[in-house]
Structure formats: structure tokens, C-alpha cells
């Protein structure tokens, strides 16, 4: 009970507030408000009365409208029946006419079937045929022809049927020709230029010594990556040739979209192969460069020493600018001593010369041995990566695996490519060093003896 009383109070308060809100607009005090409410009530009741009168008037009209609608319905029903009858009659007529058409078409129907399938096949061929680059607009004609033959109301004309035959013939003839023609070529940077294009049958398109491809819109575009230089020069030769035979790299899969050419272009270049080797590959290359520089430096130094030693062999006075001269100078200084002592002194002098002559040779030998081992290291790490890929993706994708394996093998190649010249260079440098040491070791005492006897 209390709650209800509270609500009533609350509603009353709300009413008071809203009333006071209205009163603020119009009424200045409560009496005035009362007056206003009364007057509006009178106006409303007058309106209601007017509405009721209208309604009564219209009610009388409704009966008239109903009868009118019923009349319309019956007339439309009659019309529908008449139309239905007419439709049945005309359907019979259509059937008759269709029968007549079939009779008259007879064997022609079979012919159109063949024409449709031939045109469809040709349409599919033209989509990939490079001849379309030279003769655009053939596909549109075929589409129209196919539409015509499939529709029930139109028949292809004799000219159109003959043109189909002509297009077939032209495709056959053109795919056996090597021709030059002018066409719009899209360059890799998006620029379009009008230039001379050579079409080799249905196999390749070349222009200005570059291979082209035909994109889906039958536009000719320069391949972003071109095949090897030898194929490019062949293409240039072909374009400049006027008669006779010219060797050329033909893509046998040209008529089906040129997948061989694409595959060949996708294969990595030498530089890309080198990058495939990864960190181990770079290390091997660096070691190889070090070996090469070291070998060249030692070769130059030893050549200089060698020529000085040769000069020393010819002269009788020791010159201290070369190892042999220094050894001979030791003999010169100890002229009075006996043979045994002199030999020991000279051996000591030769021992002093040895490190300078042999320096770097061991490093070269180590590099020659380590380079293939580094290559092996790269291969094994590459294989580990490949097998990790297998554990993640499974062995179902040979492409993913093959990529890793070929990059693993690159390091082996790099190792061998570094090792082979290093071994050769080591042999050459070692030969020079050995000759000089040979002279120092075995001939210096003899030279001293010869000089002593000559005096």
C-alpha cells in the first residue's frame, strides 16, 4: 500500500513539474491554465464530431466501391480465360513450327553442332596462341559466332561459316611461319612502345634481342628476366637476318603457354646461386680471396728473390740482397776455417733464410685443405635446414625440399671452386720456394768450393 501511495505521489509530482513547465510557456497562473484546458477540450470535441460525420458519409460510398471492384474482377477473369485459350492455341502453333524447323534444318543441325565445337576448340587455342598477338580480334568474332549458333532465333551466315574455316586455316599457316610485324610492346617499367616484333611460329616472340610473353589480354610484354645471353644474341641475330637459316632457342611449350621458357628464366643466375650459399658460402669466398691474394703476393716476392738468386749464380762476388748471396758471404767471412766448420756455419745461415722463403706456404696449404671441409660444413647445415623443413611441412612438397638441397650443394661447389685453384697456386708457389731452398741447401757449398778453386 505504501509503495502505491509513493508512486502516486511521484506521478503527481511529475505531473506538477510538467504542468509547471507548460505553465511557464503560456499560462502565468493556475487559473489561466484551467481555462486553457477547458477551451482545448471544447475544440477537440468539435473535431471528433466532424470526423464522425465524414466517416458516416464514406460508409455509404463503400458499398458502391465494392460493387465496382467485383465487376472488374469478373471482367478480368473472363479476359484471363480468353488469353489462356489463346496461349494453348499458340503453343500448338509453336510446336508445329518447331517441328517444321527441325525438318527443314535436318542435317544442318549436325553441321552446326560441329561448327560450335570447332569454334569452341579454336577459341581455346587462340587464347594461348602467339598468332593472336599479330591478329587481335579473332576471339570476339568466334564468341559472336558461338552465340549465334547456340541461339534458337539466329542462324550464322555463309560468310561467317567461311570465316571460321579461314581462321582455322590462317592459324595453321601462321603457326608455321617466322614473321616480322609491328606491335605495341609493354616494357618492364610499364612504358608502351610500338616496335618491330619477330614471331617464331607459335613458339616465341622476340623484339630488339629480348624475349616477349603474351599476357592474358593478348598484349605483348617484355619478360622481366631474360634467358641467358647466348639466347638473347640468337634472338637479335634472328631479327636482323633477312634470308637463310639462323640458329634460335625455341621454346617447345610455346603453343601451350611457354612453361619451359618461364622455368628457364626462373632458374637462378650465378650471383643468386652464390647468395644461396649463405653465411658459410660468404666465409668460403672470403677465405678464397685471402688465398688468392696471399698466393699472388708470395709469387711476386719469390719471383723477385729467384731472379736475384739467378744473378748471384752468375756472379762470383756475394751480394747481400738475396739469400744465396748472404749464405756465400758467411763463407767469405770464414775463409780460413776448415771444411767441417764452414759447412756448419753455412747450414746455420741457410736455416736463417728458410722462414722468409717459406712464409705463407703453410697457410696456402691449410686453405686448400680447409675449403672443401667448409663446403661440407655448409652442405650439412643446409641439409639440417632441409630436414627441419621436412619435419614441419612433411615430405609432400618436393619443391620446398629441392630448394634447400640445391642451396646446400652450392657451398660444396664453392669449397671446391676455392680449393682447386688454391692447390694449383700452392704447387706453383711451393715450386719456386723449393727451387731456391734446393740451391741454398745443396749447391751453396759447391759454389763456395768452385769459387775457391777458381782463384
Amino acid at each position, binding site marked *: 500500500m505504501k509503495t502505491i501511495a509513493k508512486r502516486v505521489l511521484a506521478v503527481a509530482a511529475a505531473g506538477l513539474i510538467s504542468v509547471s513547465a507548460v505553465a511557464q510557456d503560456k499560462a502565468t497562473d493556475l487559473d489561466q491554465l484551467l481555462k486553457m484546458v477547458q477551451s482545448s477540450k471544447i475544440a477537440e470535441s468539435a473535431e471528433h464530431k466532424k470526423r464522425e460525420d465524414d466517416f458516416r458519409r464514406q460508409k455509404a460510398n463503400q458499398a458502391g466501391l465494392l460493387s465496382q471492384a467485383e465487376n472488374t474482377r469478373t471482367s478480368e477473369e473472363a479476359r484471363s480465360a480468353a488469353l489462356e485459350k489463346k496461349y494453348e492455341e499458340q503453343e500448338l502453333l509453336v510446336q508445329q513450327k518447331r517441328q517444321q524447323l527441325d525438318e527443314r534444318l535436318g542435317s544442318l543441325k549436325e553441321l552446326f553442332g560441329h561448327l560450335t565445337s570447332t569454334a569452341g576448340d579454336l577459341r581455346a587455342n587462340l587464347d594461348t596462341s602467339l598468332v593472336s598477338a599479330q591478329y587481335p580480334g579473332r576471339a570476339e568474332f568466334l564468341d559472336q559466332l558461338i552465340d549465334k549458333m547456340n541461339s534458337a532465333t539466329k542462324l550464322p551466315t555463309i560468310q561467317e561459316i567461311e570465316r571460321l574455316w579461314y581462321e582455322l586455316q590462317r592459324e595453321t599457316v601462321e603457326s608455321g611461319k617466322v614473321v616480322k610485324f609491328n606491335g605495341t610492346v609493354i616494357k618492364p617499367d610499364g612504358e608502351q612502345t610500338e616496335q618491330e616484333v619477330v614471331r617464331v611460329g607459335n613458339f616465341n616472340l622476340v623484339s630488339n634481342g629480348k624475349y616477349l610473353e603474351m599476357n592474358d589480354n593478348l598484349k605483348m610484354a617484355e619478360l622481366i628476366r631474360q634467358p641467358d645471353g647466348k639466347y638473347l644474341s640468337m634472338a637479335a641475330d634472328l631479327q636482323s637476318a633477312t634470308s637463310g637459316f639462323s640458329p634460335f632457342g625455341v621454346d617447345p611449350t610455346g603453343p601451350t603457354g611457354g612453361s619451359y621458357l618461364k622455368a628457364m628464366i626462373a632458374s637462378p643466375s650465378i650471383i643468386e646461386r652464390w647468395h644461396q650459399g649463405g653465411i658459410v658460402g660468404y666465409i668460403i669466398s672470403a677465405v678464397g680471396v685471402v688465398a688468392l691474394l696471399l698466393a699472388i703476393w708470395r709469387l711476386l716476392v719469390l719471383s723477385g728473390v729467384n731472379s736475384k738468386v739467378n744473378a748471384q749464380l752468375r756472379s762470383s762476388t756475394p751480394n747481400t740482397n738475396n739469400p744465396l748471396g748472404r749464405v756465400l758471404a758467411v763463407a767469405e767471412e770464414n775463409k780460413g776455417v776448415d771444411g767441417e766448420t764452414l759447412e756448419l756455419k753455412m747450414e746455420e745461415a741457410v736455416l736463417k733464410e728458410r722462414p722468409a722463403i717459406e712464409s705463407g706456404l703453410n697457410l696456402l696449404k691449410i686453405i686448400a685443405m680447409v675449403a672443401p671441409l667448409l663446403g661440407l660444413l655448409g652442405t650439412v647445415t643446409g641439409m639440417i635446414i632441409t630436414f627441419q623443413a621436412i619435419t614441419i611441412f612433411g615430405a609432400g612438397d618436393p619443391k620446398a625440399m629441392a630448394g634447400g638441397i*640445391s642451396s646446400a*650443394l652450392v657451398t660444396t661447389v664453392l669449397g671446391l*671452386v676455392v680449393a682447386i685453384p688454391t692447390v694449383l697456386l700452392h704447387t706453383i708457389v711451393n715450386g719456386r720456394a723449393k727451387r731456391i731452398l734446393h740451391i741454398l741447401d745443396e*749447391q751453396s757449398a759447391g759454389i763456395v768450393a768452385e769459387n*775457391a778453386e777458381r782463384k
Partner: protein
Amino acid sequence: MHALNDAWAAVNAFMASGGPVLLLIAGLTFFMWTLIFERIFYFKGGLKRDVQTAMDTWEARPERKSWNAHQIRHALVSRVSEKIDSNMDMIQTCVALAPLFGLLGTVWGMINVFEVLAITGGGDAKQMASGVSMATIPTMAGMVTALSGVFANTYITRTAQRETQLLADHLTMDH
């Protein structure tokens, strides 16, 4: 002439199926056998003259007893042995390099095989066959080169040792 053309065509086909490394092996083989033949011709011809000169110099000496004579004899033998041993290291290196070249060819061919595999997905064994032949032919060629070189090298080394020893024996000392 026809037979020569056929042979040339066969060699070309072999070279093409072996890949670029086979050319390197061919070059190496040619270089190695040139050196081997050079040694053999030297042993048959030039060596005799060098030995004779050394022996004449030795025989012309007034005395063959002193320390000086000993050293001079040593130097004479050393000079001839230097000539005998020249290029021998290079031949040995070539023998050692031949299998390395073969390995290089193998790896190169394998890279080709895997590349074809990466492009075609392994469906076409025929396309991989060219890579396989590029992998196997250089290995075989490298082995053949190395084996032939090993035999020739053994013969040359033994001849060189014998000739050096013979010379040392010829230069007799007086006691």
C-alpha cells in the same frame, strides 16, 4: 672424313651431356699429359746430355778427393736432379686435382637435378636425366684422368729416382 665427322659429333655429344665441368677436366687431362710426355721426352733425350756434361766436368777435375771436390760433386748431382724433378710436383697436383674436378661436376649436376625438381615437382624423370648425366660423367672422367695419371706418375717418379742415383754412382770419388 665421314668417320672423322662422326667421331667429332660423338665427342661433342659426350661433352654436352657432361656439362661445363667436363671441359675443365679435359683441359686438366691435356695439361697433365703434356707435362708427362715432356718428362718422358726429357728422360729419353735431354737428360743424357745433362748427365754427360756433369760427368765430363767431374772427370776433367785434377783431383777428386778434397772437401772442395765433395761439395762440387754434390752440387753437380743437385743441379741435374733439379732438372730431373722439375714439373713433377705439378703432375702430382694434377693427379690429386682430377677427382676434385670430378666431385665438382657431380655437385654441379646434382644442383641441376634439384633445380629441375624444384621447377617440375619431380614428375618428369626425363628432364632430370640430363642433370644426372652431368653429375656422373665428370666423376668418371675425373677418375679416368686420375688413374691414368697415377700410373704415368709412378713410372716417371721411379725413372727420376733411378736416374739421379745412377748419376751419383757415375761420379766416383778417388780414395
